[in-house]
């Protein structure tokens, strides 16, 4: 193969006209007309409806189910219980690796948490199935559940999050605290939270012999397919998952949940297509949640306001039968410079569903506590909180000494502060009032989220008609994959967006990896980029080897792909169209595959993080304690921005999740039953339009040559971090009252 460097060198993208453009959503028309088909919108012929019956106790056994009564109800076709469920080839309790979570698939009469599926009713109509499920009238033998963080025995987990060490110690914290001019210790609590995507999990499953087709929302189709293949003992190729649109995911659709598999089992049992859609209340149990946390921070600072020690200890919970440990302390790894940093985790086991990745797992609660504590430390030092953060700016990653691959946090602080008018902030709390006598407070928080990458593959084709196709089984859960990845695809094959057919959203395409960890655009985008580079290289090979081509012998100089033509890099006037090259070669098309994965060597050398600064203004009623966020400005630097329009939406969304975390959302657990008492959208508060001001985001430019060939970091989760702390700090600044329990509700503020 001639010496060309397209695969490694992104130079042919330099003129790419698609990346960076604020295109509107390619899926927008379908969505504004109601024509976008989500999983539960599929109604194939012969469809039956399934409804799960879930446990009302958190621990014990199901001792009786009135299957006869349910079966006698008109329209009911089948009741699936541990007694008659189809046999599984794989054990749902097996744990071959940490990313396989134990599922409740009616394997026994054991109840391990409230909301666990204990039976399933299949009927001709949804109403009949619902009524059938009620008629089951389960009886239990129940045992007292462990419900809160004080109910279990503490232990240090072997790993937290997706496999990080539970403890990290850098320097001597005790010595740092002893030497400090000022030291603080504070404990913060965050509640259990539930993802609550607006689309409840749904599955429409159909078996044809040992082939399975399902419509179900998935943030990782290839992994879901492998899990199903193992459970049902069929080859993965026999399974087709279609997931063109997810109605939100936020982590709870990352790995296949138990109820989704139950729908597949029911379809096998009755030999007809089955639809199973969870109710809102049924999302509080088997599809994951964010564990509550109790975080103790100890900070010391010298006379100049420079940190001498930072210790972040988190107590959190997992279920009694499986492991996911919210890595909240790790939010302190890379943000503030300190000669001594210790991050520690302990856990207890509770009788709840297994917690799961939830938008900014670890970082969200961790940043809430860290940013509050840093503010308390600034106050103790008598410093402006932004000035304090600048004095503790980490020029290198504090725990490892590695340089950052890029870090425009200073610009984020500066631009956010300027936009917000931060320099007019009085230092003392409770010193601002508005014209109606409401207390006004201003707060800041730093945002940080690691720039991760997983693995993905893509396929690119260039055809003789001058068009192209790019395929990848990527997932659009609202972040805009259909749009941003198509932009990358067009540049990758050097074509105008309209000339490229972009295919995605189903499992028969190359594995697009996981839409999670804010890594999907980077990972899937890199796969597309390298597939495009590879197919262009094939084309270039054809042209450069052919004497009749103007590109003959371009050799080391290489070529650039643009607008459906290859140009000699050293002489752009010499070019040839894709169509002519293929025509002469007598080929209908050329194709190539490419992979996206992190560059392990670069990861070793550099710390890779996206950063941001969030500024909040709140107003608090001095008598009633009611808090409203009245301004919110976020400035973020996250590498190359593929589509600023989509990215702004991601930042807004994250920031509103931050408002929600700070002021609204919490599951309130009933200590006797172990059930959430507010398992609905009336009681589980998330912000609505009326709760929010207009937001502002600033996209701070940042070029990162190390994270990946495209320079992309992630934007999906960072908005929550920083925002929660900014609001909590603004509430303190407004009132002089430091609430260390989230959400900051008026009773906590007045109490």
């Amino acid at each position, binding site marked *: 193969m001639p010496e060309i460097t397209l695969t490694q060198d992104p130079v042919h993208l330099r003129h790419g006209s698609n990346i960076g453009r604020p295109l*509107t*959503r390619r*899926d*927008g*028309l*379908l*969505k*504004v*007309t*109601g*024509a*976008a*088909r*989500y999983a*539960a*919108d599929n*109604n194939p012929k012969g469809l039956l409806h399934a409804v799960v019956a879930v446990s009302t106790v958190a621990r014990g056994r199901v001792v009786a189910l009135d299957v006869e009564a349910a079966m006698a109800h008109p329209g009911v076709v089948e009741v699936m219980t541990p007694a008659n469920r189809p046999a599984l080839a794989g054990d749902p309790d097996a744990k071959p690796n940490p990313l396989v979570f134990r599922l409740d698939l009616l394997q026994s009469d054991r109840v391990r948490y409230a909301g666990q599926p204990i039976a399933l009713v299949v009927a001709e*109509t*949804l*109403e009949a199935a619902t009524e059938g499920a009620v008629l089951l009238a389960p009886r239990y033998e129940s045992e007292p559940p462990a419900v809160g963080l004080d109910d279990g025995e503490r232990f240090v987990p072997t790993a937290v999050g997706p496999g990080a060490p539970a403890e990290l110690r850098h320097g001597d914290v005790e010595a740092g605290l002893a030497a400090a001019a000022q030291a603080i210790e504070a404990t913060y609590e965050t509640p259990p939270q539930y993802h*609550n*995507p*607006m*689309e*409840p999990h749904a599955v429409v499953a159909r078996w044809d012999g040992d082939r399975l087709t399902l419509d179900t929302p998935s943030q990782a189709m290839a992994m879901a397919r492998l899990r199903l293949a193992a459970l049902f003992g069929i080859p993965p190729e026999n399974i087709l998952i279609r997931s063109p*649109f*997810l*109605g*939100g995911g*936020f982590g709870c659709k990352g790995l296949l949940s138990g109820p989704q598999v139950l729908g597949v089992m029911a379809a096998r049992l009755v030999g007809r297509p089955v639809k199973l*859609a969870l*109710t*809102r209340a049924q999302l509080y149990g088997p599809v994951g949640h964010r564990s509550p946390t109790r975080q103790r921070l100890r900070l010391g600072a010298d006379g100049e306001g420079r940190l001498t020690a930072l210790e972040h200890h988190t107590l959190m919970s997992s279920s009694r039968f499986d492991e996911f440990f919210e890595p909240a302390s790790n939010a302190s790894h890379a943000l503030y410079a300190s000669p001594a940093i210790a991050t520690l985790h302990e856990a207890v086991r509770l009788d709840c569903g297994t917690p799961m990745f939830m938008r900014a797992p670890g970082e969200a609660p961790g940043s809430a506590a860290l940013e509050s504590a840093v503010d308390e430390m600034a106050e103790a030092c008598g410093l402006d909180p932004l000035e304090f953060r600048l004095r503790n700016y980490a020029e290198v990653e504090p725990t490892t000494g590695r340089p950052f691959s890029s870090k425009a946090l200073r610009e984020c602080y500066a631009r956010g502060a300027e936009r917000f008018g931060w320099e007019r902030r009085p230092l003392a709390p409770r010193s601002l009032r508005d014209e109606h006598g409401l207390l006004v407070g201003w707060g800041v928080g730093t945002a940080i989220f690691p720039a991760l990458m997983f693995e993905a593959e893509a396929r690119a084709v260039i055809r003789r008609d001058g068009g192209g196709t790019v395929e990848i089984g990527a997932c*659009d*859960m*609202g*972040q*805009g994959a259909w749009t941003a990845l198509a932009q990358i695809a067009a540049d990758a094959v050097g074509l105008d967006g309209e000339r490229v057919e972009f295919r995605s959203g189903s499992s028969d395409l190359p594995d697009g990896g996981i839409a999670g960890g804010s890594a999907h655009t980077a990972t899937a985008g890199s796969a597309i980029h390298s597939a495009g580079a590879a197919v262009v290289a094939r084309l270039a090979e054809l042209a450069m080897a052919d004497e009749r081509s103007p590109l003959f012998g371009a050799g080391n100089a290489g070529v650039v792909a643009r607008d459906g033509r290859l140009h000699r890099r050293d002489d752009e006037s010499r070019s040839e169209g894709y169509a002519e090259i293929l025509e002469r070669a007598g080929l209908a098309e050329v194709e190539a595959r490419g992979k996206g994965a992190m560059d392990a060597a670069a990861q070793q050398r550099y710390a890779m993080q996206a950063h941001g600064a969030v500024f909040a203004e709140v107003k608090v009623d001095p008598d009633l304690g009611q808090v409203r966020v009245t301004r919110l400005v976020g400035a973020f630097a996250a590498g190359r921005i593929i589509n600023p*329009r*989509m990215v702004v*939406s991601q930042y*807004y*969304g994250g920031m*509103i*999740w931050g408002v929600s975390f700070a002021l609204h959302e919490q599951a309130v657990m009933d200590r006797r039953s172990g059930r959430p008492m507010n398992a*609905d*959208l*009336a009681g589980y508060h*998330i*912000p*609505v*339009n*009326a*709760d*929010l001001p*207009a*937001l502002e985001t600033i996209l701070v430019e940042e070029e990162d040559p190390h994270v990946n060939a495209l320079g992309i970091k992630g934007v999906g989760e960072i908005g929550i971090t920083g925002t929660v702390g900014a609001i909590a700090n603004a509430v303190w600044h407004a009132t002089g009252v430091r609430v260390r329990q989230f959400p900051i509700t008026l009773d906590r503020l007045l109490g």
Partner: protein
Amino acid sequence: MTVTVTTTINGDAEEFVCEADETLLDVLRDHLGLTGSKEGCATGDCGACSVMLDGRLVCSCLVLAAEAEGRQVETIEGMARGRELHPLQQKFLDAAALQCGICTPGFLVAAKALLERNPDPSETEVRYWLAGNLCRCTGYDKIVRAVLETAADMKSADMKSAGMKSAGMRSA
């Protein structure tokens, strides 16, 4: 017990048979193939199922299908006229005022109801009117701006056509 219901949906006469306890939302989605209205909660808390019933904004998950007898139902599917999008749909599309899009039909139906009764709403009025529609993604900001901009566009279009009409009358 089954009932036969005669109603009008998006301007077309429609007759369907349903269970007495079936919701309008379920009938729209499961019997009539109108899956644009979504179920986010089935308890009236999220607005994803918003439709118009005789010109009134309702949560179709809280309405029995039998209640549609003799009434006018308007859903997201009837919002565009053929291929011509309603100005709100066009604005949501142009401004990318949507993310996962599952809440979008509900927001559009609710926003249209707002502009029909109040063509010139303030930002606060938009925020409170749309407080019954939840968006977890959460695209509130762009949605509010899209509604306000649509209202402004529609007003100036109205003024133009009113201006033309009165000009036409003068010349006659």
